[in-house]
């Protein structure tokens, strides 16, 4: 038995004396109605966070959440119940509730034998909360605030936070899956306010991933976030009104890859495509981007925020090609939608917690590097926008209309970056925007590890990335007509 499976059993099953026999029996009971598939998802989640403002770490919190979610699927129907109690009677009750979705069959119990496979872990099986002494966490946040203040006298407020999560999951499914994962996740965030004689702006930077907190103390990274946040705020102080209307847009590398997440990522999730509600439904094999574009969803990069050794259904994380040289290649699938569409699961079945149903979700979504020099891309624009940093985004899956909001952007005039402009929302159509990509940079970068994706009220950590790229025409939602 792998060490991860052993640790997961110790945390989730042994305290209430649950073993394989009990799980197999419970699974057989679940399958006794006309159920096609069932799974049991055990989770223990521990979260600690500290936050600093006005030079002091004034607050900290610690949260523990644990429970088990039980799902039964019959055709396209899903029954779901959960319990925050891990004892057998509570599980049996949840199983009875969940399987009521299917018509009852005979009393015959369907035997299920669980087998644990193993996948090579993409991150260490640690509890990141314990990777740094509490005192050192405080010192780290204080050093971040000192670094920010050192940059400029106009820095009037520094807010910094540090969070660490350990998630231990164990999944048993009627297809015989028995899998476990231990997922660390850390994040450091800095927000600064600068004040220039009453004119104020804000800058934010941060990052993290699936590793321990020592990454922030062994390297200069945390201090770099502080410097980046101050620089961004100071640039925004000088920013002029943003333009309104359609124009060429150059997107910087890294986090601006949120474009891909909103414009095409959500529209390629299996559930919307099975139901025919996505603007991309039925379009596999068609051209949806310029031939310069190859986009993947890759759960397999070690230590990234969106990476998963296994997904929340026990399927190994994969690198799935979504668009290859402009042609739509595939969807992201969980087990249910894959089965109903006659496709293979792609390791994208994710859920916020045991109390939520799994569905197809992104992991790390990015565009592969092209051949253009980023400077050459900017030089090619007569008049347009150069957007290097973004806030959030959103998409209407069905119409394909999406937005993402720039937080740091500049005007390009006659091939040169001239002056900063204030944040503005960019809006476009998912199936069309990538056909407008005319240059792709050779500078692929992934984001620093800050993405949170929301869908149907469920939040999961994700990553994005891209090289610098040029979109010939996109609507910029500024105020300057």
């Amino acid at each position: 038995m792998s060490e991860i499976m052993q640790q997961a059993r110790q945390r989730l099953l042994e305290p209430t004396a649950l073993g394989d026999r009990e799980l197999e029996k419970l699974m057989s009971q679940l399958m006794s109605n006309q159920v096609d598939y069932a799974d049991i998802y055990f989770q223990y989640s521990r979260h600690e966070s500290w936050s600093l403002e006005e030079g002091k770490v004034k607050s900290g919190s610690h949260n523990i959440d644990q429970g088990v979610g039980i799902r039964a699927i019959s055709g396209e129907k899903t029954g779901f119940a959960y319990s925050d109690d891990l004892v057998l009677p509570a599980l049996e009750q949840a199983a009875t509730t969940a399987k009521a979705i299917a018509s009852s069959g005979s009393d015959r119990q369907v035997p299920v034998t669980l087998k644990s496979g193993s996948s090579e872990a993409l991150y260490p099986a640690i509890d990141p909360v314990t990777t740094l002494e509490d005192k050192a966490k405080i010192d780290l946040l204080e050093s971040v605030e000192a670094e920010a203040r050192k940059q400029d006298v106009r820095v009037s407020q520094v807010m910094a936070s540090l969070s660490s999560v350990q998630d231990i999951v164990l999944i048993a499914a009627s297809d015989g899956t028995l899998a476990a994962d231990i997922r660390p996740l850390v994040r450091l965030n800095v927000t600064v306010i600068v004040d220039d004689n009453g004119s104020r702006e804000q800058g934010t930077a941060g990052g993290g991933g699936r590793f321990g907190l020592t990454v922030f103390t062994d390297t200069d990274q945390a201090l770099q976030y502080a410097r980046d946040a101050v620089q961004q705020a100071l640039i925004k102080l000088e920013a002029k009104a943003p333009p309104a209307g359609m124009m060429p847009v150059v997107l910087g590398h890294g986090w601006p890859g949120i474009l891909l997440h909103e414009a095409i990522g959500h529209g390629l999730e299996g559930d919307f495509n099975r139901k025919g509600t996505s603007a991309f439904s039925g379009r596999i094999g068609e051209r949806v981007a310029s031939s310069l574009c190859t986009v993947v969803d890759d759960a397999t990069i070690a230590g990234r925020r969106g990476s998963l050794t296994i997904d929340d259904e026990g399927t190994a994380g994969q690198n799935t090609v979504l668009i290859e040289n402009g042609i739509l290649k595939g969807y992201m699938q969980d087990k249910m939608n894959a089965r109903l569409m006659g496709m293979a699961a792609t390791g994208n079945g994710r859920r916020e917690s045991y109390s939520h149903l799994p569905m197809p979700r992104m992991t790390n979504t990015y565009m592969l590097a092209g051949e253009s020099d980023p400077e050459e891309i900017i030089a090619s624009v007569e008049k347009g926008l150069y957007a290097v940093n973004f806030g959030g985004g959103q998409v209407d899956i069905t119409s394909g209309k999406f937005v993402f909001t720039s937080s740091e952007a500049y005007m390009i005039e006659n091939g040169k970056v001239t002056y900063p402009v204030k944040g503005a929302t960019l809006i476009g159509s998912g199936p069309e925007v990538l056909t407008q990509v005319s240059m792709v940079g050779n500078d692929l970068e992934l984001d620093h590890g800050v993405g949170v994706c929301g869908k149907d009220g469920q939040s999961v950590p994700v990553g994005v990335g891209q090289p610098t790229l040029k979109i010939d025409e996109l609507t910029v939602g500024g105020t300057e007509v």
Partner: protein
Amino acid sequence: MSAGKNLQQSIPSEVNEIAAPLQEVIDQALHDAVNRCGASSAEADASLTQGSSLTVRLGEIETIEHNRDKSLSLTVYFDKKSGSASTSDMSAEAIRNTVDAACSIARFTAEDDCGGLADADQMAQQLPDLDLWHPWNPDTDTARELALECEEVARGAGSAISNSEGATVSSHEGVGIYANTHGFSGTRYGTRHSLSCSVIASDGQAMERDYWYTVARDRSALQTAAEVGRIAGQRTLDRLGSRKIATCQTPVIYEAQVASSLLTHLISAISGGALYRKSSFLLDHKGKKIFPDHINISEQPYLPKALGSAAFDNEGVATRQRSIIKDGVLMDYVLSSYSARKLGVQTTGNAGGVHNLMIEHGSSDLPALMKQMGTGLLVTELIGFGINNVTGDYSRGAAGFWVENGEIQYPVSEITVAGNLLDIFQSFVEVGNDLDNRGNTITGSILVEKMTVAGE
């Protein structure tokens, strides 16, 4: 420690049954924090929410979900230092561990002069029954029939309706207790039922989706399934054939269900946290005129059956009916005891937010507002989060209708609306009487004099 002040609260007996074990959990946590760990003060909140939701899609059940969530959260104070912890496990051992975790954190946090419980004299003295408890718990057949009827009406709204995201019936009830070592203990309780439907229309070229929902404390206040289905279907059909418009500056009407977002931005900007951090575009605006004369906005926490009603806030402080904007002037901020101390004033009973924010409306319905506007944009949906709370700069994706001579001409999409919130607030021309009361912010449609629309 419980009910130290013997607050009279007339609580339905079902609520009492749920509340009793929560009270025990809270008593144990507070007692443990003070007597075993030596905290100088502490506060705790324990809650239980339960219910179920059923979704049908294309005439068949798609999902049935049963929810039951409980949690205990605790903050301990050691003079001026604090620590917080929470747990979903309410066993005696887990409570003890949670108290330890909070106390452990408090060893490392810095002293904070403004921290601590809200002042004892601010605790709510009366906890009137706000008529928020109306359990429903529809059985599977009842919920299924309602959802089926709703979806069927929506799908029958027109031949262009091509697909469905389904119709959902949900019913939930929640009970929570907040208590602190001043001796305050208050129980909050309420039910919440909803019916929603979303369908898709196609003209062979493009697809559009829209939805409608109804939500209420009491199921008898819900719109009928047929009504929800009819509106969802019609709204979806109305969007077919949408196009961009040319970039321009134009008057804009925010339909009631999106107009509430403008008031939410106001509240963010006058909230204590943004003010003491000097990160609000409305810093130092108390007493100043930020809306036209005819705009009045109030907080009304004691409305019977309303979704945002509450007699005490997250710190046990009495909520108050009060004016926030009077004749266009900002009367007061939105503060917790912490942010109030930072600003050197008293809490306004808003730890956790405002309770039933209402804007005074005129006598125009939406068609009359469109007549008044003449030519301009009617916004029915907003996407994205392009609001800068520090500067008030505003830029969001939008969809809606182009209006000429007071009449809808055609649907529009893939555009943005932009401006600065200070300018937008000052150019509120009229508030319609078509109130949307499905949330904590209650407003009619709002006509704004001028914004920048980016399109083609």
